[in-house]
Every structure is written in structure tokens, then in C-alpha cells.
């Protein structure tokens, strides 16, 4: 096995960027995705943001127990999943609902965990998407294992692991980066560095200039990108996925972005960050940026913008009405999936609960 240890593994010192915050093409020599891809990135970001604001609204109506918004991170979530093939596996966290909905998982099933009727609402195999990871960084290792097994089976499946800046402090992230590189597993670690782990800023997580600088320590490329530039995210993810698919091993990508909302609807961000900081990041909005670029290129007109806003609104409306009906719950299911078959003890406990529900215990 060839081991590459040279400066090529280091990220650029300036985040890679295709489109500047004002919508101008950047001066960097990067490959712009084709027009259809750019329009699709824009479309999915608009739908994703509306989904996100609808989910936040559902918490206020008591239809969701909690929702961690990803507003501001649309370019990361959409740019990442649009670079994936259908056969690739996504390993999301609880903040990656937009990415999951963009993989065509039913939005109601995306929100099942947060509504609280089960821990995971969708079929992971149908969508090649693992259950959302709540103890952060634990999904990194699952992604490595699955990708390694796929390669042993002769497939060219790639795992895309989503994590945040906070999760890079966890031991599992270190073990996953190291093992993935030793095994040359086809994995892309996509770090959405949104500046905060709940309330703790990155400066208290890491003393390194960039998280992507860690790549070279594992013998894998570290890539630093502007995470509010959907075109750049898509391009960098495509490069990393192609490399992994063709046997070139894993990549660590750090995307610089910002969480516009608080950690969740239950959090108060004013306790740990200033409004002016949020305002600065609003000026780098990922959707506005791509919209300006597309408009300047003549790839998007006002009619298309209005039609898309309408489509997003209709989808949000369907989600709202679907979430306004109470889920049908079967308490007996609590015992059904603990093991392949309920144990003798679990069968007795299920009978106890059934008796209670039938009033037999009174």
C-alpha cells in the first residue's frame, strides 16, 4: 500500500470557494458544477429551508418534542447529499434532517425521532441512511465499518459520515479517521463546522487553525471549504467520493458554516453569542448567494423563484397536515425488537403491560 505523506494532504490556507458571498464567481480555479446541478442545489436548499422552518414551527405547536434547526447550513447538507450516488450510505446526526429529506426520505419519517413515536422512522436499507446519531461521533465508526464491508464484498459503495465541530473532540472520531485511513476505507468525513457545540465555541474544542489540518496526521487529505457555498460543497464532495470509490481512501472535509438558530428550540443562544455575529453570517447566506449567482448567469428568473417558493410551501403544508394527526402507537411494540425474538422474560413483561392496558390488573 502506498502511503502519501506530503503537503498535498494539507488543506489550502484559504477556504476553497466557487461563489463569493455577494454572488460573484470567486477568483479560485475550481470546477463549477453544471447548470442543471446548480439549479438543483438551489431548489433543494429552498425546499430544505422551508422544511426546517416548518419543523421549528411544529415544536411551538407541540407536535415535535424538540427540533435542532440547521438553518444556515443548507449548502452543507444539500451539497453533500447531491454528490452521493443512490448506492452510497449516509450516516447523519440529529441536525441533518435537511440532508435526509433531500435523500427522498419521507419528511414525517425524518421527524419520527423528534416527534417521539419511535427512535427511527424510516427503513435504513431503503434509503441507505443509518438511523440518526445522537451520541455524537459514534456514527463515524459505523460508516467506516460499512464501507469496509462493502469493499470486501466487491462493491464500490462509499460512506458519507456527517459530523460537527464538537464531534471532532470525541475519541470515536479519532479512531474512525485512523482506522479508515489504515484500511483505506471508502469514507468521506464531512465536518459541518458551524462554530458551536451547543454553547461551546470552536476555540474551546480545538487549538488547531483548522480541523481539516488533522487529515495529514492520519495520512489522508484534509480539505477546507466555504460551507455556505453549495457549489463548492458539491464539487469537493464529488472529488472526495470519486477518490474513495476508485480506491483512493478516505477524505476529511471541513466546511465552514454557521448555525443561525439556537441549538434547538429549547436553547437560548443569547447566553453565549452576540446578535452581531449572527448578522455577519446572515450576510453570507447560502441560498441568497447561489440565487444571485444564478440570476446573474441568467439561470434563474423571478417566475422560477416564485414557483419554487410555492413548491416549498406546498411541501411544508403537506408536512404540517401529516404531523397534525396523532401517530398510532402500539405499546406491545416496545418488546418486539429488543431481540430477534422476545425472550421468555420479555414475553411475560409484554403480557403484564397488555393486562394493565386491558384493565385486568385493577
Amino acid at each position, binding site marked *: 500500500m502506498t502511503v502519501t505523506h506530503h503537503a498535498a494532504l494539507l488543506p489550502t490556507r484559504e477556504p476553497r470557494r466557487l461563489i463569493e458571498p455577494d454572488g460573484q464567481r470567486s477568483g479560485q480555479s475550481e470546477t463549477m458544477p453544471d447548470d442543471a446541478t446548480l439549479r438543483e442545489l438551489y431548489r433543494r436548499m429552498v425546499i430544505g429551508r422551508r422544511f426546517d422552518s416548518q419543523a421549528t414551527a411544529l415544536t411551538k405547536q407541540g407536535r415535535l418534542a424538540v427540533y435542532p434547526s440547521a438553518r444556515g447550513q443548507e449548502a452543507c447538507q444539500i451539497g453533500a447529499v447531491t454528490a452521493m450516488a443512490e448506492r452510497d450510505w449516509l450516516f447523519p446526526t440529529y441536525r441533518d434532517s435537511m440532508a435526509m429529506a433531500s435523500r427522498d426520505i419521507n419528511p414525517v419519517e425524518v421527524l419520527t425521532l423528534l416527534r417521539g413515536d419511535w427512535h427511527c422512522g424510516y427503513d435504513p436499507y431503503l434509503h441507505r441512511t443509518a*438511523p440518526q446519531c445522537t451520541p455524537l461521533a459514534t456514527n463515524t*465508526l459505523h460508516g467506516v*465499518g460499512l464501507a469496509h464491508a462493502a469493499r470486501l464484498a466487491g462493491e464500490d459503495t462509499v460512506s458519507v459520515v456527517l459530523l460537527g465541530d464538537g464531534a471532532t473532540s470525541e475519541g470515536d472520531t479519532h479512531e474512525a479517521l485512523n482506522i479508515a485511513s489504515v484500511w483505506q476505507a471508502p469514507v468521506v468525513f464531512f465536518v459541518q463546522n458551524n462554530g458551536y457545540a451547543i454553547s461551546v465555541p470552536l476555540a474551546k474544542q480545538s487549538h488547531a487553525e483548522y480541523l481539516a489540518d488533522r487529515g495529514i496526521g492520519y495520512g489522508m487529505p484534509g480539505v477546507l471549504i466555504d460551507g455556505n457555498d453549495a457549489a463548492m460543497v458539491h464539487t469537493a464532495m464529488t472529488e472526495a467520493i470519486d477518490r474513495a470509490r476508485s480506491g483512493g481512501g478516505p477524505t476529511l472535509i471541513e466546511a465552514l458554516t454557521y448555525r443561525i438558530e439556537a441549538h434547538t428550540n429549547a436553547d437560548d443562544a443569547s447566553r453565549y453569542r452576540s446578535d452581531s455575529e449572527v448578522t455577519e453570517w446572515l450576510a453570507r447566506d447560502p441560498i441568497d448567494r447561489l440565487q444571485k449567482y444564478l440570476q446573474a448567469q441568467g439561470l434563474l428568473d423571478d417566475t422560477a423563484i416564485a414557483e419554487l417558493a410555492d413548491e416549498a410551501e406546498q411541501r411544508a403544508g403537506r408536512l404540517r397536515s401529516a404531523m397534525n394527526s396523532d401517530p398510532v402507537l402500539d405499546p406491545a411494540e416496545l418488546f418486539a425488537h429488543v431481540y430477534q425474538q422476545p*425472550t421468555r422474560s420479555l414475553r411475560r413483561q409484554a403480557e403484564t403491560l397488555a393486562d394493565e392496558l386491558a384493565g385486568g390488573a385493577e
Partner: protein
Amino acid sequence: MTAVAEQELTMAGALNRALADELREDGRVVVYGEDVGTLGGVFRVTDGLAAEFGEQRVFDSPLAEAGIVGTAIGMAMHGLRPVVEMQFDAFAYPAFEQITSHLAKLHNRSRGRINLPVVIRMPFGGGIGGVEHHCDSSEAYWVHTPGLRVVAPSSASDAYWLLRQAIACDDPVVFFEPKRRYWSKEPIAEQPAADFDRAAIRRGGTDVTLIGYGAMVQTLLETADAAASDGVSAEVIDLRTLSPFDDETVAGSVRRTGRAVVVHEASGFAGFGAEVVARLTEQCFHQLHAPIGRVTGFDIPYPPPMLEAHHLPSVDRILDAIDRLQFDDTVVLP
């Protein structure tokens, strides 16, 4: 390769043979961990397997227990049946989160869509003069976790069969190997001592039921010999499966004998024996002639090797516990 039955093997050899037979018969089985490849494991349980089955199926991993279990979860999600080794019991603690929050729960979280047929082999227990962190008995942590099966063989023959049952099982299994019995030899039986989720009665008796697992079963059999010379007929139950627990076999025995002692090396406080006593009390109260006894390790960190003999349950200490079971209607406080 000749049939395994009737061959005399050590427990380590029997486990090696079980792994080889599974690797041969099921292409989905992979075996990995620290030093399990070229070296063949620090106890040689995986000796020769990498050479026979190739480094894609039997291999050394980086020194990272959470990584070993976490990647095994991902591999199992893709259809493999990983058998991974934690080099020593106490070295498994870094993997605690991956085992309890993910390996044990993903089948349930995914409503049964994800199956994780992963076996985690853990050499456990003391009695080999091991230094600290090499002699823990951590079963209470794992049996307390719904979704895991926890098993422990006591002999070479059952080690072979129990490991094969564990690998064939679609649930995740923590497989405890009693390291002080690794070199005990016996012929391999033609079949398992019991079904995968059942205990086995190793020796019949009428006066008291001695309950244990792993290395303690041999100690219980020696205790039963000694008790017999005192005129007490002891039945010995080898639990084999700690979780799920075989209430029927164990309670059935205690209902017949009316007395029981539960024995394990692990500390007694909130230990697995407490669960056994509680279950038996709930199920056999009217057949019991005395409170159920417990003989366990003290509530101390595992002792240094030169003092471990004081900590481990011994034949004499178990005989004393039997004596306290009010055979003569005289209450003797310990």
C-alpha cells in the same frame, strides 16, 4: 479436517476450532481485534486462522476498542458476521458506548430492520496471576443492557459449541471466556450441552443447588465432591447464558432442592448474583428452606496477583456458605 467431536482439546483450542469451522462454513464471518492476526491472539485463540483464511477475513485492527466494536456494527449492517476480540475484559471499557448505545439498541431503534450478528469475545476473570486490568469480571454491566445476549462457557467442549451458537445467533452476543480454564482439556461432545438460551445441570443432587458460570463451574464441581463426603448432595448448574436467564432450569432445580448458593468472581454488591437471588426468591419462596447464599468476590477493585487467592471464591468458602443454609435449623450468622 476431521470432525471435532471426541477430539480432546483445550478450551483455547476448542474456541480456535469453533472459529475455524464458522469461517469455513459461513463466508460472512470475519474475525479481528488486537493481535488476533499474525500473532494469533495473546492467548492463541486465533492461532493460524489468518494464515488459513487470509487477511481479509482474519486481521489485526488498530489498538482501539471503541473502533473495533464501532466498525463491527457497520460491517454487520452490511451483512457480515464479525467476531471481534477484546484482548482483556477491562480493555473493553472504551467500547462501552458502542456496545450499550449502539450494538445493543440498533435493532430496536430501527424497528427490527437492522440486524447486528456481532460476537464480542472477552477473556474474563482472574486466577492466572494477571496484573491489574487483566482480571475483571464485567458481566453485570452487559447483562444490565437490554438487547445484548451474554454467555459464558465453563468447559472446552461447551466453549466450542457455545461459540458456534453465538456466531449463528442474529442478536449481538458478549461471549465471556474464563481465561483460567483456557488450558483445561476435555473431549469435545457431539452436541452442545443445551440450547443456546438454556442452562445445563452439570451434576445432579438433592440437597442444595450450586449456581455459577465460567471458571466457577469447575470450582462448584469440586465443592460438590467435597460436600458429598460431608453427606450433602449438591446439584451444580452451569448457567451458560446469563442473559437471557434460564429461569425454568434454575428455579426448577431450586424448587427440588430447597436450598441454593450463587457463586461468581465479580464483586457482590449489585452483582449478577443479586439478580439470580431475587429471581429465585420471587419464584421459589415457598420451597426455600433458607435464604439463598451468595459467594462472590469482595467489593474491592481486583486485587494484585499475590493477593488474588483471598478474593476468589474457593471450595472452602462455598462449603461454608452451604453450611449456613440451616440444614439443622440453627441460624448461624456469617
